[in-house]
């Protein structure tokens, strides 16, 4: 277990998670368990990284660290079902129609500062996805925001891996004949498909190929079992994950907007014999909620995004409420480094747009995405036996005036607002020391202090800055 020494705030050093698992009693908070109601003046005991007791009267061993949470609200760690944070390099392998051979797991970047910023908003788990440039995109992974750890240590142990599909405008944009609004550059070579019709074809075609590939390996394995020595088929990294989908070992997370394409995908999945685990964005999901519920797909959508492109024009912020009321498992996601910092506020919007209750709203960013990702046995609510992934807010998290104060993952404190603020001056000093050291090493005459720009009084031209 190691620590990133360069963390932009010294918090990661202060909150050294190399310390052995602590016993922590969070006392006297409003405990929003999400699944088992809200406990006023409740307490939660953390031991060995798990929640070991929840209730009004919880006793703790003598060596427990006590956190007095009077007046504060404790919630499960927030879970984001659609993230592109912590990815090194491009989030898309958009050069081919089917990029299932690439894997986000290979490029997780634990040094992305947006991980820390998201933690500071209460986010603890992210479903990190490939982008939406392809009908069939790359493999995806679930991580915990264990800031300061390595990429390997961030992986959510036991979470089923996924694969990204994308429908609608994005995966067909490279197939357009002329330059679109997004300026595709000089006479681009078109990449199939250029229409939604083609998107369906890509998916059906690739799964057809996957089945043939699967059969090929089956035949090979049977021959080997019989003692023969056939030449093995080529292991094809593109088709392997598709076979896993067919075998139910890999979840499909499909970016989609319009009702026609949503329906299309559900039917193709039925035809090919696999399930869609989650529909992502799914802004017109409210129109086919019935079919989504019948298929058993979860829906992970935006709180109120719309009208940024044509397929988002029929979006309504009531989407989550409608789908929920029609029996779909719904979560709210961010798809954004910025939005992921305040998913609790996004959840609160469902109270206005659809009249959801507090628990229903909070569920949208906790237990619901946990269920969608198949990790609800470990996270998503405050229950005995689950991971101690918790957030302490200074007031009701569904209030727009609330702030996250502390965040624990596996019972380790990964964010503490007070400590963050306390360590800022020291961080500034350290940084200034490095700047000064560098400046001192420069040949004389080139020297200019970094503070020049901020101190100088307003002047029309930059001359005096030299």
């Amino acid at each position, binding site marked *: 277990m190691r620590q990133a020494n360069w963390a*932009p705030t010294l918090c990661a050093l202060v909150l050294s998670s190399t310390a052995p698992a602590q016993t922590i009693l969070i006392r006297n908070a409003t405990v929003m368990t999400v699944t088992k109601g809200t406990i006023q003046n409740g307490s939660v005991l953390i031991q060995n990284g798990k929640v070991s007791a929840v209730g009004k009267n919880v006793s703790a061993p003598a060596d427990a660290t006590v956190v007095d949470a009077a007046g504060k609200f404790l919630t499960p760690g927030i879970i984001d079902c659609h993230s592109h944070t912590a990815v090194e390099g491009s989030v898309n392998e958009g050069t081919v129609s089917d990029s299932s051979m690439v894997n986000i797991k290979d490029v997780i970047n634990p040094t992305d500062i947006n991980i820390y910023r998201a933690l500071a908003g209460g986010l603890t788990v992210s479903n990190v996805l490939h982008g939406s440039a392809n009908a069939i995109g790359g493999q995806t992974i679930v991580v915990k925001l264990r800031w300061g750890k390595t990429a390997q240590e961030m992986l959510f142990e036991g979470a089923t891996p996924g694969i990204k599909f994308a429908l609608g405008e994005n995966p067909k944009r490279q197939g357009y004949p002329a330059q679109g*609004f997004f300026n595709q550059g000089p006479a681009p070579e078109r990449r199939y498909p250029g229409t939604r019709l083609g998107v369906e074809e890509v998916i059906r075609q690739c799964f057809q190929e996957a089945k043939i590939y699967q059969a090929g390996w089956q035949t090979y394995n049977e021959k080997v079992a019989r003692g023969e020595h056939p030449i093995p088929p080529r292991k094809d990294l593109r088709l392997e994950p598709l076979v896993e989908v067919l075998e139910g070992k890999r979840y499909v997370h499909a970016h989609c907007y319009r009702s026609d394409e949503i329906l299309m995908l559900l039917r193709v999945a039925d035809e090919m014999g696999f399930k869609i685990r989650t529909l992502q964005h799914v802004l017109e999901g*409210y129109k086919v909620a019935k079919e989504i519920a019948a298929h058993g797909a979860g829906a992970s959508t935006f709180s109120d995004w719309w*009208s940024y492109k044509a397929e988002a024009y029929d979006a309504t912020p*009531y989407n989550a409420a409608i789908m929920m009321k029609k029996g779909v498992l719904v979560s709210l996601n961010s798809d954004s480094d910025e939005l992921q910092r305040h998913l609790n506020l996004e959840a609160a919007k469902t109270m206005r747009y659809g009249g959801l209750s507090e628990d229903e709203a909070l569920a949208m960013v906790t237990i619901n995405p946990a269920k969608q990702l198949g990790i609800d046995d470990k996270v998503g609510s405050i229950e005995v036996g689950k991971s101690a992934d918790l957030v302490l807010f200074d007031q009701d998290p*569904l209030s727009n*005036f609330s702030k996250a104060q502390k965040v624990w993952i596996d019972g380790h404190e990964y964010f503490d607002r007070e400590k963050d603020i306390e360590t800022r001056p020291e961080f500034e000093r350290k*940084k200034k020391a490095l700047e000064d050291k560098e400046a001192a090493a420069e040949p004389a005459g080139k020297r200019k202090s970094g503070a020049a720009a901020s101190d100088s009084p307003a002047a029309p031209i*930059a001359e005096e800055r030299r």
Partner: protein
Amino acid sequence: MRSGLLFLASALVLCGAESNSVLIRNVTVHPVTAPDIANASVLVIDGKIADIGPHLAARSGARVIDGRGLQLYPGLINAATNVGLAEISALRDTVDLDEIGTFNPELRAEVAFNPSSEHVEVTRASGITSVISLPSSGGSGGRSGSIITGQGALMHLDGWTWEEMAVKRGAVMDMIFPQMQADVPRQYAALLGTPAQSLQEREKQYKEKLQQVSDFFQEARRYKQEKQAGGAGFRPNLRLEAMLPVIDGKQPIFVRAERERTIKDAVAFAEKEKVKIIIAGPREMGSTGVLLKEHHIPVVMGKTLELPLHEDDAYDAPYTLANEFYKAGVKICFGTFDVQFARNVPFEAAQAVAFGLPHEEGLKALTINSAEIMGAGESLGSIEKGKWGDLILTDGDPLEAKTNIKRMFIEGREVALESRHTREYEKWMKR
């Protein structure tokens, strides 16, 4: 329950035709410029607020509305949007922003304001009764390289035509202040394939742009002189004509400036040219707070819910920025600088409040401050006699997402809070 209320509201609106006199009773009134009044009423006659008090009687045919113990606030104002001028950002045909040309002061946003834009209804459903609509999308350097992009207008979010909706035409002159091109970070230089320009080159380009601006203003002043002299050879020029209110100090310039250096340069420019400016969309304050206060320059805050500018910035830097300006003595108001999230401006204010801005300042920055900064302080922004009857009835704090906006009045007319979004909701719940 909510749909029932909406239906009732719509029915009333239809019945009331275009009645703009109303008595709203039994509410907690939040005037913003005065202390809150519990159990009170507000009387609007012919679109203007006529009286506020504990027991008022209806007159002049005012409809009576029982507020049922709800809250009454002034309609909220979004001080920077493109509402009406853009429908779907990705579809150029639906977007009327960023005209070609460096100096376009004569362009007027209101003439292309589409009263049937879905964004009108959608935005007001969150309690916003007026917006500033700007002719450009801004962004660093502006997408088209424009500097002066046209004039922004203060618009009510209700009316049959843009003419009826315009509260103040030419409220501001929209300007994207020239900015030093940022250096391309090492990691991206290869990706972007751009040869990094030297600091010298970038400084040079920047100074050239500033000179261009200076020259243009000079041209405008010369034009004014010529016009006043009224010589035989004088020919009117639309562009320069449009600059006259600016150089006369009557029309403030809405100066988009994100960085500390840009802000300083903008202030220096305003001093030199003797014009009024508003700083719009700053992303850092640095030492400019003091400067802006001294020069009485107000600020339209950009999105609070934003990422910090630099990797090493405090995680809550954008959240605390509004309060920093406020503490420095600068007058602030909020704008979202977009279309589809214009309705969320109350939540931008709320986040600033969460991180230190006093609540009443947050509310002022959504109402009276915006009105005053835009030169409409006499007619909007608070519940005061003589002002427009722009009001919202809510079941709670309009800065909270949990709160429901129950009813809305613009110029005393009740306005439906239905929109494309609520209609989809009604329709598809039935499936």
